[in-house]
Structure formats: C-alpha cells, structure tokens
C-alpha cells in the first residue's frame, strides 16, 4: 500500500494504482476523455494533467503511478487552463447541438464544457461533413461527434475484434473500419463495447434517437441468462420498456463485455413469438385459456401420471425456480426430473469451484472453444483475450481448430485427454509436486516438446487458471492439484445454480426422458428439443412460442430473465442477483410462481425459497481429488449448435435476426 495526498486529502491505495483511480478513491474527479479504467493510460487528451508538488512540469494522471509520500494538486490554475484549452479546441470541432443530442447528460465533453464554462469555442469552427454509418440496426457511427479519444479503437483491439482504426492524424483524423467498409463487412461482432466506452455521441445504439436520455431511464442491475457466460448487465428502462442494455460488470474488470445477444436481444421481449396468455389444445388447436383452467388441466394430468410423469427444464432458470421445480417433482411423486445440464455435463463437474480470472496470468483452455464471432461464450473469449493482450499466457488444448488458438503461446492440437496427460507428465518431469496416484498414472506418458513448453509456462505462472469443457473437467482438474484453479465452463447461464439447488435426476436423465415414453411431460424453458417426445400429455412452460410449444397440449407463459427476480450462480460459482427490469408481458408469470401454482392445484403448498438456502447451496463446492485421466464422452456436445438452439427465440425475435441472415447469406455465397 502507498500513502499519498490528493488535494490535501490523505489516501492509501494499492501499489501500481494510477493517479486517476487514486483520486477517485477520495472522491476527486480528474477530468479525462481518453482514459479507460483497467487499461493503460495513453495521455492523448491531456485533460488529466495534474501537478505534483516539488516537480516542475505537470504529469498525466492516467499513466502516472502513485508514489509514497507524493502530494498532488488536481486543480491548479496551470492545469485548469490546459484543460480549458483542450476542451475549447475539441468543442471547436464538435457539433453544438446538445439540446437534441441523445448523449446529453452522460456526455463527457458536455460535462467538461460546462465545468470550464465553454459556451462556444474561442477557436475557429471546424466542420468535416463525414457521413454517418447507419447501415446496421445495432450501432450508429457518426464521426462528426468524434473527439479522437481512441477508446473505441482500444477496447476493440483489447477484445481482438480489431474492427476500428485511426486514419489520418491530428484534426483530420477519423475512426474508420478497414477500407471504410460498413461494420457488417468488417468482421464486427456487434458486441457494442465501443458504445459503452464512447464518451460522446459518436457511437450509439442505432435505435436510440428520440427514445429518451440517460436521466429519464430507470437503471436495473441484472444478469443475462442467454449463455454460460452469465454476464452482469445494466438495463435502462423508460415507461416500462427496456431501451438499452449495457455491460454491468464493474468498470475496469476484464468481464466488462457483453455480446450482441445480451445487448440487443431484449427486442424479443415484445417479439411476435412471445406468449402472453396460457393456452390449451382444444380440438387439435391451441387456444387461449385462463390460468385457472390451464393449471387445473396440468395438475390433473401430472397427478394422474404420478411417477410416470417427467419434468425437464432448461438451465437458464433461476436458483429459486430450480429448487421449487425439484420440490414440485417430489409433490407429484416422480423421480424423472432433470435439466439440460445433463446434456453437456455431469453433475459433479458443475460443482467445480471458481477462479480469479481478473488476475490469472495463464489460461489453459481444455476442449472449450469460446468464440465471439460464433457467439459461443463470447464474453469468456473476450475476457481471456483481454488478459492475454495484457501479458497473460495462453495454452489451448483442442482437437479442432478453435479461433482462439491463434492467440495461444502454445497450441496443443489433438486428443484433449492425451494432451492433458502430457502436460501433467511434463510438469512432474520438471519437478512439480503431484499426488502419488497421478505420478503413477502418468508414468508411461512421454510428453511432446510443445507439452514441455506448455508445462514451462504453467510452472512459471503465479496464478494459472484451467478452463475446461465439462466433459474434460475431471482430467483437467488433475492439473489444478499441482497448481492453480480449474473451472468447468457450462453452456448455460445457471447450470451451476440448477445443480447446486438440487435439480438433478434420481431417475431418468434428460436424454432418457426425451427418448422414452411418458404419461405426462412438463418442459420448462427453451430446451434443445424440437420434436414432441412420446408422451401422453405435453406441457410447455416458456416465454416464447418455441417449436416444441406449438406441439404442446398446454402452454404456460413464463417470464424471461429481464422480467424475473431471483438469483443465479455463474460459471465461476458466484451468486448473482437477477433483478426485474420490466413488468411481465401479458399474463406471463415468473417460473417460481407458476411452479407454486401448479403445486397448489395438485393439492400441496410450496414455500418460497429463502436467500439463505441459495447462499448455503452456493457454498458447497466439490473438493478436487485425483481421478483417472478420462473423457466423459457422454457429455461431449457441439457448443455452437447447442447455443443456437437454446437462443433461437431471442435471436429470431430481435434485430439479431438481421445479423443471422447476413451470416447465413455469407456462408451460402
């Protein structure tokens, strides 16, 4: 820890902190346009110049580290004049239309112009007449507003999407894409990270015009349940509808990325496939009905079916839902209750612990293929790439050719289990301490040169993190017995919560339920099943009219995550709060409420789940012990296909459909 004084206020911060962050700790804001928390300061805007007592020239606060005993002054006449000067220059090349600008209220330039009393620039007005790129439904780029801070370029590069770049220097500089092509032809993933960092109106959600400004929005912190990344999001709502979604992880953390699905998928809340009312099949047709009637019908069939009834659920439901669903199964006396988790993971793997990816200095990816472009665990891909671009090492073990392998210091192509064994043996050969069984099991293995290189990197790392496919978790976790943490990465947001809350099968598993014959089947959420399984009575509880729902006997409308309240456990085992951002559409009800209502109709009463139960469940983590180097082949699954199937309704019901069609066209062309 380092002690210093900022404007006379004593502050103690960690070593290596820069002056902007240190000042923030005592509530002093040092103006800046180009600084991004968590990234290296580049000192382009010079607004953050501060004076250090005892030194002659002012220094940039964004890239100056704290020193013991330092005393800095953030608002001397000299630095304030420089800030005014730079702001004045930028205002001279910025449109003065704050009264109609969507960014009014959150615009940093507006803030500083106000602070420095710059009504109009004292310098000559410059206008460029750049065209606006409005050719996609996601991101509007208007270079007229650009203040050349390069935040968008740097965040894009940090994530390795590399779409944006500068052309020209000085006043004539402009943020461009390769050959000035529109974004959709430049390899853009439309994750929108650039929107989050733009300090002005140069990058904005495409549909924001006249849909309210920052101060009119209600803000809700929540979690996106679209995929295994389970990203924190911040939802802005106005008059009961969602206007936009931003990344919600703390500023500066590597997890502060969300993908196009998380940011723009909310359109589907009011999409035409949304189910607003309960439905019941009458004479071969699904017809609207009342909740009472629907519940009575469902309860009747479930009760009659008893132990021949089965329940399957998606793992994108909340912890509370999971616990209640399990209890509901007990109420109707069936053991056949399972979630989609068992399609891609053993229950044990989902009890794996967490890891500190923020500080990890080596990532070992075993059999997973996070990919922002294919939208497979995009936020995990971005986080790993951010860390790697910041100096962390990357070892990729995969039998295919994942895109992230190009980023790896060592890429071991081939059978993942074999590669893990080779690394294990290489580590032992290099003198790492390992359990006796492991040493014995690996004795016959002869590591390749690249495995040796990977082992070197692993040994050198202070905090290695192993991210593995659930099917490889047991094998991969063995390495964590030597060093570091191992995490099984699920494909669905709350897979770990669903398992922790006990929604696991004591009877038939998911696949067996779908492929066998049941008297009644209760399917919850968007599950990767499109054909009606052989069942006497099919209930589908979902927010959207999935293909399965169209074949159901009763359809119960549930609320998607943005309309629900509860908790989830993300891939790193952290409990996150899911908050309701807007009211349910139509008659839709949260999953838990429906489960309780069904139970009541059956003649039992379920108590709501307490927060303490969730906390307790989240704490129980399986201890890593040596197990044979084996692949859990039953749980190998094509992640891309799985995610496409479970996100179909979100994608098809939102502007993402535009992107999907474009991608399909590109593939066929």
């Amino acid at each position, binding site marked *: 820890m380092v002690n210093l004084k900022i404007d006379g206020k004593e502050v103690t911060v960690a070593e290596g902190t820069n002056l902007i962050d240190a000042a923030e700790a005592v509530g002093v804001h040092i103006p800046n346009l180009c600084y991004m928390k968590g990234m290296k300061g580049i000192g382009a805007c010079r607004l953050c110049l501060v004076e250090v007592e005892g030194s002659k020239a002012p220094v940039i606060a964004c890239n100056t580290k704290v020193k013991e005993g330092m005393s800095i002054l953030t608002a001397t006449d*000299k630095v304030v004049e420089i800030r005014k000067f730079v702001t004045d220059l*930028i205002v001279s090349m910025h449109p003065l239309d704050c009264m109609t600008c969507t960014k009014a209220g959150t615009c940093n330039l507006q803030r500083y112009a106000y602070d420095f009393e710059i009504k109009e620039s004292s310098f*000559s007005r410059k206008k460029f007449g750049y065209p606006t790129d409005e050719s996609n439904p996601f991101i509007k780029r208007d270079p007229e507003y650009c203040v050349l801070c390069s935040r968008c370029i740097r965040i894009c590069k940090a994530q390795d999407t590399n779409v944006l770049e500068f052309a020209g220097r000085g006043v004539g500089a402009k943020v461009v894409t390769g050959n000035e092509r529109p974004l959709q032809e430049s390899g853009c993933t439309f994750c929108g990270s650039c929107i989050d960092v733009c300090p002005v109106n140069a990058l904005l959600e495409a549909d924001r015009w006249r849909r309210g400004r920052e101060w009119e929005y209600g803000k809700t912190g929540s979690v996106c349940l679209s995929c295994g990344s389970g990203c924190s999001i911040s939802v802005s709502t106005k008059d009961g509808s969602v206007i936009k979604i931003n990344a919600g992880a703390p500023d500066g953390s590597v997890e502060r990325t969300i993908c196009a699905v998380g940011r723009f998928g909310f359109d589907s809340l009011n999409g035409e496939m949304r189910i607003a009312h309960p439905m019941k099949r009458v004479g071969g047709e699904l017809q609207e009905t009342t909740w009472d009637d629907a519940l009575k019908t469902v309860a009747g069939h479930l009760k009659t079916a008893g132990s021949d009834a089965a329940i399957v659920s998606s793992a994108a439901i909340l912890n509370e839902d999971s616990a209640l669903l399990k209890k509901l199964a007990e109420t109707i006396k069936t053991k056949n209750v399972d979630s989609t988790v068992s399609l891609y993971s053993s229950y044990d793997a989902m009890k794996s612990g967490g890891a500190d990816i923020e500080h990890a200095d080596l990532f070992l990816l075993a059999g997973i293929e996070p990919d922002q472009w294919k939208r497979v665990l995009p936020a995990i891909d971005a986080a790993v790439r951010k860390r790697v671009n910041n100096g962390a090492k990357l070892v990729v073990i995969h039998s295919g050719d994942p895109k992230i392998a190009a980023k790896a210091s060592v890429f071991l192509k081939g059978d993942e289990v074999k590669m893990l064994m080779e690394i294990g043996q290489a580590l032992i050969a290099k003198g790492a301490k390992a359990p006796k069984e492991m040493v014995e099991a690996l004795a016959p293995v002869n590591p390749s040169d690249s495995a040796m290189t990977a082992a070197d990197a692993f040994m050198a790392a202070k905090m290695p993190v192993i991210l593995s496919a659930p099917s490889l978790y047991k094998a991969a976790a063995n390495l964590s017995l030597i060093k570091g943490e191992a995490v099984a990465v699920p494909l669905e947001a709350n897979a770990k919560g669903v398992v922790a809350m006990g929604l696991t099968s004591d009877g038939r598993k998911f696949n067996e339920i779908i492929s066998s014959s049941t008297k009644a089947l209760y399917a919850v959420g968007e599950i990767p099943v499109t054909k009606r399984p052989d069942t006497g009575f099919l209930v589908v509880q979902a927010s959207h009219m999935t293909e399965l729902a169209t074949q159901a006997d009763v359809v119960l409308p549930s609320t998607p995550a943005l309309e629900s309240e509860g908790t989830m456990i993300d891939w790193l085992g952290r409990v996150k709060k899911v908050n309701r951002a807007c009211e349910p559409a139509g008659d839709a009800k949260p999953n838990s409420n429906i489960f309780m209502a069904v139970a009541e109709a059956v003649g039992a009463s379920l108590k709501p789940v307490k927060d303490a139960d969730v906390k307790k469940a989240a704490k129980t983590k399986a201890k890593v012990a040596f197990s044979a180097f084996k692949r859990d082949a039953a749980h190998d699954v094509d992640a891309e296909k799985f995610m496409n199937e479970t996100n179909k309704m979100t994608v098809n019901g939102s502007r993402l459909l535009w992107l999907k069609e474009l991608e399909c066209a590109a593939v066929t062309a």
Partner: protein
Amino acid sequence: MSETPQKEEAPKKDMKDVLAAVENIKCMVQKSQKFVEEFLSEPMCGKCHPCALGSYEALVRLKRISAGIGKQEDVAAIQRIADDMLESSRCIKGKDTAKFLLNALKTEAFREHLEGHCEERECPAYVIYRVIPEKCVICGLCQDACKYNAIMGQKTVSYRSGYLPFEIRQKRCVKCGDCLPACPYGAIEVIEIKTGVLV
C-alpha cells in the same frame, strides 16, 4: 493516437528539415506559417490533443494574419496555443513548435502586420501593384514581362487610332515583381493596402 505501436515507416521529415525549410524566410509571420505547415505535414505525430489540434488552429490563425485579415484576437489565440502547447504537449516536437511560435511572438512582426505593414515585404497580401497612368507611355513592355497575364491594356500603334490604358488585374497579380524592372519609366508602383504607404 493508438496505444499499440504501429509499424510505421520512420518519418521522412523531422524537426531539422522543418527548420531548414524556413531558414531563408525573413518575415516572422511567413516564417511561422511555413514552420507550422511543415510541422503538420509530417513530423506532427498526432498522439496528443494540444499539439495535434493546437498547431492546426495556430495555422488557421497564421494564415489569416498573412492574408492581411488578422486581428488582435488571432495573435492572442496563437499566444495561448503556444503557451499551452509548451506546457502540455507530450513530446519535444510539440514543445519545439510552441517555442518557435513564442519566439516569433516576441518580435514586433505580429504587431506590425496587424497594422498592415510587413517589414520584410514577404507578405504579398499586404501590398498592391498599380500602374501610374501619368507616367505610363503605353509601350507594352510590362505586359510582355508578366508571366501571369495580369496586365491588361492595348498599346498604341503608329498610324492607328485607339488604345486601352494599361492596368493591373488584381485577381491575377501574384506580386512577383517582374514588371518593376521591365518598365523603363518607373510607371509601376507598389503600395501597402492598409496604410497607403508607397513601398
């Protein structure tokens, strides 16, 4: 302004070349303008705002002054840009440019220019070329000497009636001075526009 160093070719011009380019200019306004123009053309890296945006603005102001439409506020703006650039720009190149401007501002040149006077006679916009009708004999020698066809008129031819008096078309005149030695009668004069003083 990007954070990652790019593989760019070494700049062809550096600050030495900029200095060399302005070496022979005597008028401080012209010299400063050329200096900033040369600086912006290559050595300016554009990595920080005060220098990248400031030197561009300084050039705008310098051009106004050398075009004869400069005002006190233009000089004040250049002064402010130079002061702040010296203090806040990121590297020595920006600071050197600021220092150059500050030194230029210390001379009398800027004040004189605002009054309409270019001591070194290097600011063409400050003067006007004129034919003195009383002295002109309509010989046409100046017309032959002018490379820019800026002198209008028709010389007298023996035994023919009619002629047009000689005049200089200001729009075409580039103030090169070639006509001055061509006139055997000293019938072309140069006057400072604002002050009306004969040069």
